[in-house]
């Protein structure tokens, strides 16, 4: 065990993967000698050579297209898109190519070895274009897996699972926590399951669900609710696609209440899908409408970041609304 922040845990996972399999390649903008703008790939070019960890030209659609080809050839490419906000030039390659590669060929070809890493989320004074949480766009695409870790331990285990999973994975890293989250992380290889949510804290009165950096926000909100005598169950969804309906439904059947806290703009954020499915599965168990604390339906503002954000206070209020319904 070592104390690592989230970036060090990512770096450690990449290191383990590259040592394990020489078809693992890392590329993206500035990921080479410089080690990436956040330093997630620090030291990897020195250790594994320029052929396996290298800079690409500044072209996200090219990075994703190149990655698709390399994965189809039998490799384990790990492509970095420098910010989730800049993934959209690659949208066609990811949605029309990555996600459909196996299906459209009848399993003649696949890009299962592919992992796309990208930092997402706000809280770093990043304005419109360094703050977005675009997971819902991709969650509408069959064939992709989408994974979001909440802390260093989760990040390393989930990333290692993602790299060697036989399906393409979009791995979204909460950049607000890159250095802020520190925890014990094994130095050796370990994996955590994809498609499985985790009950972070058990409780009986209300289920509070989130993913990535939002889990920390939820923990703060629940602390406040506990002072009011509320017993809340916290679930980290971990995988957005496919997502663990069973764990969430089981919890809601127990508590009768669900609050979803999410960073993305309210309308059509992934919480909309969770709410729709849970009302379908748990209708007669629900004692209150499913509540959502989300970002505003505006572009992510700079000066009003705090006001925009679905923080612990807004989440706490959503918990109260659910309990007092």
């Amino acid at each position, binding site marked *: 065990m070592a104390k690592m922040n989230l970036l060090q845990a990512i770096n450690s996972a990449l290191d383990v993967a590259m040592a394990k399999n020489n078809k693992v390649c890392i590329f993206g903008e500035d990921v080479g000698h410089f080690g990436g703008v956040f330093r997630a790939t620090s030291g990897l070019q020195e250790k594994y050579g320029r052929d396996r960890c290298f800079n690409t030209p500044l072209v996200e659609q090219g990075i994703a297209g190149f990655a698709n*080809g390399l994965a189809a050839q039998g490799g384990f490419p790990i492509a970095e898109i420098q910010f989730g906000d800049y993934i959209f030039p690659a949208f066609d390659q990811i949605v029309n190519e990555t996600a459909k590669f196996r299906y459209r060929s009848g399993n003649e070809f696949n890009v299962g070895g592919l992992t796309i890493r990208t930092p997402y989320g706000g809280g770093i004074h990043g304005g419109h274009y360094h703050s977005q949480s675009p997971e819902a766009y991709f969650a509408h695409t069959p064939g992709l897996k989408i994974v979001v870790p909440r802390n260093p331990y989760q990040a390393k285990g989930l990333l290692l699972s993602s790299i060697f999973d036989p399906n393409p994975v979009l791995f979204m890293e909460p950049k607000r926590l890159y250095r802020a989250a520190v925890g014990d992380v094994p130095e050796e290889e370990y994996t955590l399951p994809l498609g499985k949510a985790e009950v972070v804290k058990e409780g009986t009165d209300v289920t509070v669900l989130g993913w990535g950096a939002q889990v920390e926000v939820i923990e703060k909100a629940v602390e406040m609710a506990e002072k009011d005598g509320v017993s809340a169950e916290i679930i980290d969804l971990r995988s957005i696609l496919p997502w663990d309906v069973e764990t969430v439904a089981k919890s809601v059947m127990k508590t009768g209440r669900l609050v979803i806290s999410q960073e993305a703009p309210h309308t059509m954020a992934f919480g909309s899908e969770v709410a729709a499915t849970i009302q379908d599965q748990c209708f007669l168990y629900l004692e209150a409408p499913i509540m959502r604390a989300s970002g505003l339906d505006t572009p992510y503002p700079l000066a009003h970041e705090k006001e925009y954000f679905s923080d612990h206070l807004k989440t706490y209020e959503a918990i109260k609304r659910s309990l007092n319904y």
Partner: protein
Amino acid sequence: MANKAATTNNIVTQLEVIPGDAIKIPTFQLLKEDGTVNKGAKLPEIDKELALKMFSTMQFIRLLDERMFAAQRQGRISFYLSSLGEEAASIGSAAALKFEDMIMGQYREQGALAYRGFTVEQFMDQLFSNEKDLGKGRQMPVHYGCAALNFMTISSPLGTQIPQATGYAYGQKQDGKGECTLVYFGEGAASEGDFHAGLNMAAVSKVPVIFFCRNNRYAISTPSTEQFAGDGIAPRAAGYGMKAIRVDGNDIFAVYAATKEARRIAVEENEPVLIEAMSYRMAGHSTSDDPTGYRTKEEEEEWRGKEPMIRFRNWLIKKGWITEEEADAQMAEHKKAVLAELKKAEQVPAPHVDEIIEDVYDTPPEHLKKQLEALKEHIRKYPEAYPATSKGVK
């Protein structure tokens, strides 16, 4: 690490404006339109067996295109896309590769696939989307693909295969087996951002990939004069620091020789090469458009005189490698095979409904299994509304 084309080394004090047509690339041609050899031209080393295989594939594709276009018009298949006039470009280039080299097509390269060994039956199973189709009936007709023949499955979005070819070739270079990737696309698709992405990345990372542009002068109805202002596609290579060849795409020997040399450069020098094959799409874009709405009869007539099969056939006959009668008999054999397989494929059932959730992921996740069960329950209730699959749902 300064670039060899460092921009600050060569300073001039007189303002210089470089004209947009500074780079003009000639077209490499060996066989003239009548099948005689250009003066001073040296034909590539092609033996009789290889030449006849190329010719037979060409005849087969011409026949296949004609029959399947008709089959679409008869309502037997939903869609078809002919390669009429461009057979030399795809067959000549495919013949210059090693079997292990990967081919990534756009969608008009049935000639390359047939050359690799895709059978008449396999063509028909794909075109009829039946349960024997390697693609399991999931894509429109002509979206072929075959791992055993190193031919990547076609996808409709234009140009997406270009950066993929760069990535694929990067993996080949790492494996060090001396293999390369050839990727086809049209002059219209070269306007897509993926063209720039793929070529630039290939030039920078030095990978063994051949970018093969079929310049057939039309993107559906848009003529190349409305597609780009410069001298075609080949000069763009220089901007990427990449080698380029322009070849007469209707001259199968020139295409073969150009691709052979491009392959040598790609594999021996680890350098990408851009080939632009000049041709003409003699058919419509697909069964969904009618060329009379956007071009003249005179233009079509002019290109009919330059088409690739007559000159190859004339050359072969003159060489004494085939007779008129033998060539005609071969065409009749192809026709027999196509008609027989067409009739057979039509009778093969659609893929079982269970296939609908396979291959989205390596194994179907829970939510897909539930959706399939619900679908089957629904089909049991309304079997007559789903005739292709209801028999298989018990």
